[in-house]
């Protein structure tokens, strides 16, 4: 019996392909950037891009990255996006980030196979301690 439906695997794969495609512009700027660029933001997105490549072949093994995506985007939404949006004072890129980051916790919540997460990351016994 398969633990996760084929449809679900494809939903995760489509999300991974979209991430590879969507992050490509950031990845390109890793190669071409100003000498004074801090680079941390671009390197982090480059790392996510690489993980998304793995997720196309191994969607279930890369579920931790999907969870991570949902968590950090939710953190951003509540610590930065929503307070800035409601106060009217925000980063110059707030508008694009509200869509590009703030809308994605919901997308991640739809993509993540929650039954699988529950069985493998909550109910499953942890790795041995001795």
């Amino acid at each position, binding site marked *: 019996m*398969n633990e996760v439906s*084929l449809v679900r*695997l494809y939903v995760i794969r489509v999300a991974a392909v979209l991430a590879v495609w969507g992050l490509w512009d950031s990845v390109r700027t*890793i*190669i071409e*950037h100003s*000498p*004074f*660029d*801090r*680079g*941390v*933001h*671009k*390197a*982090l997105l*480059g*790392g*996510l891009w*690489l*993980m998304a490549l*793995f997720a196309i*072949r*191994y*969607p*279930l*093994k*890369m579920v*931790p*990255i999907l*969870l*991570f995506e949902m*968590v*950090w*985007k939710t*953190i*951003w939404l509540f*610590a*930065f*996006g929503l307070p*800035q949006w409601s*106060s009217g*004072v*925000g*980063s*110059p*890129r707030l508008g694009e*980030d509200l869509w590009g*980051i703030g809308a994605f916790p919901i997308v991640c919540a739809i993509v993540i196979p929650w039954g699988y997460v529950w069985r*493998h*990351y909550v109910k*499953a016994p*942890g*790795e*041995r301690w*001795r």
Partner: protein
Amino acid sequence: MASIAASAPTADPELSLFRVYVMRAIYFLIAFAEGSQVVPALFNHEATARGVIPALLSGLCLMCVLGLRYPKQMLPLLLFEMAWKYIWFFAFGLPQYLSGQQPPTFADDFMPITVGVVIMPFVIPWGYFWRNYVKAAGDRWR
């Protein structure tokens, strides 16, 4: 000897207990040492801060808490940690160090990221990674 032989079959042949603890130590360091540095920025920041970097790093720290319980299953987090630090080091840090043209944040970024670049290859269980993330058949396509 008999007790060791008897307990051997129940042990996971894939990763030694030592390796599991090395991974746990790194999850712990990321979650709590790095966490104590980055999480305060979520609450204490300029009104116009973009916030992507503190949110990303805080998310990583939070997820690493789960790595203490499931070090093997959360390996993608360690791979991500290694990947972004290597990308930064070779695309930004090292060229900027060599050229002397550096952003004002360089001194803050260089040491913590370089430590990661040095440590992470010794933490990742490469044999396990090779078997499970390269050689293993991918999830089914049909």
